[in-house]
């Protein structure tokens, strides 16, 4: 089966988009001292570190960073476990009273975000939860909306979107790639 891939974002664009999102986060929340950034495993983890770095560059303080794994909060956990692996959730700061920005690479159905919100609430009661995603590809199955979006792009359900950050990609440099499968059988 052949695949055709298109580059949606290149390294320079990822950098610029993250910079803009960081400014929006600081503006919306009123500064890093009240913000915590939590990546949704696994796609949102490297991105959350990047975003935290960008936010830190805009103010006196670096926001604390954590990560959540949604395996235990999936809405199909008890019926089907083709992949029962649970990753660690690490929230090394008190979320109570903070503005917490959940970060994921791609937003599609909204089910992952629903689960991540529920997980985060088990660590305390944030003042507000925000959602930041690098790519909003459409295809929502739950009423979920992102507050900070890098790029919006309507992608058909069969296609895949891959976000690769330099720190975890096989190839050097950041980027987001749209992969359309099944061009020829």
């Amino acid at each position: 089966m052949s695949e055709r891939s298109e580059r949606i974002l290149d390294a320079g664009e990822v950098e610029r988009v993250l910079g803009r999102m960081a400014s929006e986060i600081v503006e919306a929340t009123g500064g890093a001292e009240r913000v915590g950034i939590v990546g949704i495993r696994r796609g949102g983890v490297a991105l959350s570190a990047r975003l935290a770095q960008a936010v830190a560059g805009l103010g006196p303080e670096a926001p604390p960073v954590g990560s959540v794994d949604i395996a235990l909060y999936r809405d199909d956990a008890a019926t089907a476990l083709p992949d029962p692996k649970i990753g660690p959730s690490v929230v090394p700061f008190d979320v109570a009273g903070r503005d917490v920005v959940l970060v994921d690479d791609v937003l599609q159905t909204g089910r992952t975000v629903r689960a991540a919100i529920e997980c985060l609430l088990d660590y305390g009661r944030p003042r507000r939860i925000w959602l930041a995603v690098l790519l909003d590809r459409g295809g929502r199955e739950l009423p979920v909306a992102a507050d900070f979006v890098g790029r919006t792009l309507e992608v058909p359900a069969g296609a895949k979107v891959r976000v690769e950050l330099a720190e975890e990609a096989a190839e050097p440099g950041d980027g987001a790639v749209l992969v359309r499968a099944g061009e020829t059988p």
Partner: protein
Amino acid sequence: MTRPFRHPHLLDITSLTTEDVVQILDTAEALFEVSRRPVRKVPTLRGKTVINLFYEASTRTRTSFELAGKRLSADTVNMSTASSSVKKGESLYDTCKTLEAMHPDIVVIRHGASGAPHYVAKNMRCSVVNAGDGMHAHPTQALLDAFTIRRSKGTLAGLKVAICGDVAHSRVARSNARLLRLFGCDVRIAGPRTLVPKHFAEAFDVSVYERLEPALDDADVVMALRIQQERLSQALLPSLREYARTFGLSEDRLAGAKDDAIVMHPGPMNRGVEIDPELADGPRSVVLDQVEAGVAVRMAVLYLLAGDAGAAPTGPRGA
């Protein structure tokens, strides 16, 4: 790389591969943190039913399974024989069929007869977890011990582990020996000749000693076993004081073990018999870590078995 858990039941360690054990321990590692959160409950097994069926007295195992189920949001029901129809003469078969009609997803059973959990697994259409059967097996105890050792030592591979005391009556010793041999541990058994079965060394591929010192030499891990006064007859042991003098673990006796050797006990402890109180409460003791690990390991077992719900299990699988 992950895969679905391949077993419908957890009946003994013998049925498990090294890979299965690692999968359970890794899952437990991820679940360990849940019990330390402000909200110690996740919604994973919402709508699932777990019945704890205990035919023998138990505090920690029953409480541990109950909390494990509840922290995963399963509906958990405890049935102890003292307050059940078993007192009125109901057979195990009829109890199985009665409970089955209530549609549990998992039955956790402790029973005085070896093999009782296997019998239940054959006669009920749900997953069965052995919480200790006679002198046969106590798989979740061996798993939580392995979890505790791995956390403390970083690995299980190749460790020198001494298991000391009443091996004959101990399902804990049997399950632990099986599991540790899977990881190539050097397992040394130490106990009076009357309390170590004759063919134990060959059956479990371990070394057997009639004195503590050679078993403890250079050991990474020292496990004390409880003297099971309820299963013991006078003929096997002259007196508890005599036993404490020759096989009781103490700081002095541990002189030959590694400096960072840890001391374990499955509980409940007979302080001053198989273990000296100072050792039990001292810095080498990981007894309370074992208890904490127990909840995480049992959560992992319930989680992995509940995930197998697609294929309605009818009997034990694997060798």
